[in-house]
């Protein structure tokens, strides 16, 4: 049975979104998204892209942009807009399906950068880049962590003010889709304070070194900056950008957790269905309490992830006072149980789950990858303590 057939049988195909309160416009948007993915990049084609250095096709990116995938956090005057007007709540609809259907591409970083620019860039800076992002003509990514994968608030890239601009030296690690990005939003340090610079990837001194990734549909790279000279218009917002970084992290986590929910929902649905089909000792293995009790726990954790992911997206969209703490709470929880759910789904499948041809491992890879991409659970827990003043 193919992956797609399993998705259909398990009900994961076109299944209900994690948000139970979508409007009819949003439901239509979801349906269009699913139809587009199934027509353009079903699992067989996703697999063909695993060895592609870029990981996706730029023509496909343009078509995705026509559906509004990169416009939802972009203001209307720069070519953006979303179905409901609450851009992040529309974006998580797409994110969830990207996870459920294991899509490649720079959806997360493009939207994070779009939000950052929309909130902090000058009108001129916005006009330079946002229409291209919304239209899928340019690819942008966020260079946030240091070379060791740590959140350093920009300490790993030193930007020194010069006449008319800045010179940057240092490195960023684990940057999503840096290999195909046209624009880099770089978290750096100016005189001890954090700052963000929007830099063209083709600027002399910018070196992108691709990494080998656990998630075969994700592209990550190291980016180094050697005497990279930019003019003053590259600085986005003010020096002292901790608040902006925090907000962007919240947006990243809201999108990421929604995507992980999609991944887990697909894995879990397939696993439950498999346990009904597979027989051993004269009965479906899903009738054994040794397995069905595990699946009951997984079902509970998955429902809890959905509740958390929806609450997080809503809090970040509404800029609620609890968004910061909630982001770390939900990311810590989802990050923890995602790996547990993925491992248990593999366990219930047994040997078949350990084969390359069976698609389960692709989901398992993404589930684990997502649990570290914007911070591992224990890091989120420490930040959660700090957010509560401990």
């Amino acid at each position: 049975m193919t992956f797609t057939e399993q998705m259909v049988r398990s009900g994961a195909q076109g299944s209900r979104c994690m948000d139970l309160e979508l409007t009819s416009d949003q439901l239509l948007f979801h349906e269009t998204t699913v139809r587009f993915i199934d027509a353009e990049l079903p699992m067989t084609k996703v697999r063909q892209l695993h060895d592609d250095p870029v990981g996706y096709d730029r023509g496909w990116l343009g078509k995705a942009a026509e559906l509004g995938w990169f416009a939802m956090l972009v203001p209307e005057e720069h070519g953006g807009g979303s179905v409901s007007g609450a851009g992040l709540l529309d974006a998580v609809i797409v994110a969830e399906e990207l996870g459920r259907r294991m899509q490649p591409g720079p959806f997360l970083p493009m939207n994070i950068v779009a939000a950052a620019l929309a909130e902090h860039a000058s009108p001129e800076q916005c006009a330079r880049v946002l229409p291209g992002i919304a239209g899928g003509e340019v690819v942008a990514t966020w260079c946030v962590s240091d070379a060791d994968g740590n959140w350093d608030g920009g300490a790993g890239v030193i930007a020194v003010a010069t006449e008319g601009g800045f010179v940057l030296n240092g490195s960023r690690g684990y940057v999503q889709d840096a290999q195909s990005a046209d624009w880099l939003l770089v978290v750096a340090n100016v005189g001890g304070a954090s700052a963000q610079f929007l830099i063209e990837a083709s600027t002399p001194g910018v070196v992108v070194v691709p990494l080998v990734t656990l998630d075969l549909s994700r592209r990550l790279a190291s980016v180094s900056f050697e005497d990279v000279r930019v003019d003053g218009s590259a600085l986005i917002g003010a020096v002292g950008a901790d608040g902006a970084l925090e907000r962007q992290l919240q947006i990243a986590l809201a999108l990421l957790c929604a995507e992980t929910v999609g991944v887990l929902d697909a894995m879990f649905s397939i696993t439950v269905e498999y346990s009904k089909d597979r027989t051993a000792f004269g009965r479906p293995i899903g009738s054994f309490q040794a397995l069905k009790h595990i699946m009951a726990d997984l079902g509970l954790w998955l429902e809890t992830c959905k509740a958390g992911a929806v609450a997080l997206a809503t809090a970040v969209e509404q800029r609620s006072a609890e968004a910061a703490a909630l982001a770390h709470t939900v990311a810590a929880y989802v990050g923890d149980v995602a790996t547990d759910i993925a491992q248990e789904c593999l366990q219930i499948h047994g040997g078949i789950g350990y084969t390359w041809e069976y698609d389960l491992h692709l989901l398992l890879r993404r589930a684990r990858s997502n649990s570290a991409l914007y911070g591992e659970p224990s890091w989120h827990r420490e930040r959660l303590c700090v957010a509560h003043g401990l």
Partner: protein
Amino acid sequence: MSDTITNTSSDLDAYRQQMRDWLAANLPARDPHAGLRAAHEISAEQLAADRALQKKVYEAGYVGITWPTEYGGQGLSGQHQQIWNEESRAYAVPAPGGIASGVTMGIVAPTLLAHANEEQKRSWLPKILRGDELWVQLLSEPGAGSDLAGILTRATQDGESWILQGTKVWSSGAMSADFGVCLARTDWDAPKHRGLTWFKVPLRDPRVTVRPVREINGSAEFCEEFLDDVVVADDMRIGELNEGWAIANSMLGFERGASRDPGAVRPKGGGIRPIAPDLVEIARSRATLTHGHVRQLIAKAHANDVMHELLTARVVSSITKRISNPSAASYIKLGHGILQPLRACAAMEIAGRTGIAWSADVHAHGETAATNYLNGRIMAIAGGSNQIQRNIISERLLGLPREPNFDTNKPFREVLRTARNWGTKGE
């Protein structure tokens, strides 16, 4: 029950104002720090005083607000009840017998309303509402908890009467109660679910012995009852002969509803939930709040608290909107059953040595942690164990097949014999 009556807002406002005046004049303010009084600590004098006070509330028309007038209620709408819920929150509303009162009003009375006959309802329900009678459940037995339909208490017909014999246990608040609703086996040759019948049993009968069960935490909320050939008339039978299982299921539904913590869903705009204050206090008392491993434990417990709260709201909403079937409530129960033991263990970990010994004279955080540790498994066992919830979730929500069963279609007598010989040769 008369929700169809349209209440004008001025009627409701007048009702509310009248209630406010009455509450202010007649009930003391609620002590926000006082929990429900432990059942075994309630003296006879306290019980009598609480009953008298409930009678006063009843006579003012504030008990059984939505109940039919023919059974002693006020026959008013759910809106009226809601007004009472809101207005009375600040007052010490009497709960005679502590948990016994909750069982009587939240579980037994709705069950009687649904399943007792007309004559029984007219005779019994007004006394319950008035506070004259406290009723508890005689349900579980030493040998039948999760497998409730496997009870062994027998009711044997003797002319117009029934003779009940057996042992019941885990009856909350029975030491304060007057009557019990008792599930008994009336047909041993029928399959287990089809030979059960309900009876009203007087707990003050000399042939009934009620003994508090001392729990591992030293408290005693529950009782064990020995029914030693108790004779009850046939008009004490509730529902049809041998059809008690459906009533039992209906009662368990009321029980789940009554045990749902109304404070679990935090109102919107209620601010940020503080991070595990109990755990922070323990860490602070030991000066370990800066230790990384302690911070991890605190944050994990808090994340679980918040996530379970979000799950609860999601499940309640999806059941209300009929997106999920009512069995989804088992997700809430299982979540409590998994997380509360973990949380209790986290507190003990943070307490370290202070959780295993403390001074008798001063309040110590470690003592609280130790008590919670002993209580940690309550939600994992009571009201349907984690394993029962997992069966419900996997079968009714995920559609997984049942385990083969060996008892539902055989005469119960035979089930008992087969069970004893399980796994031996010849079976």
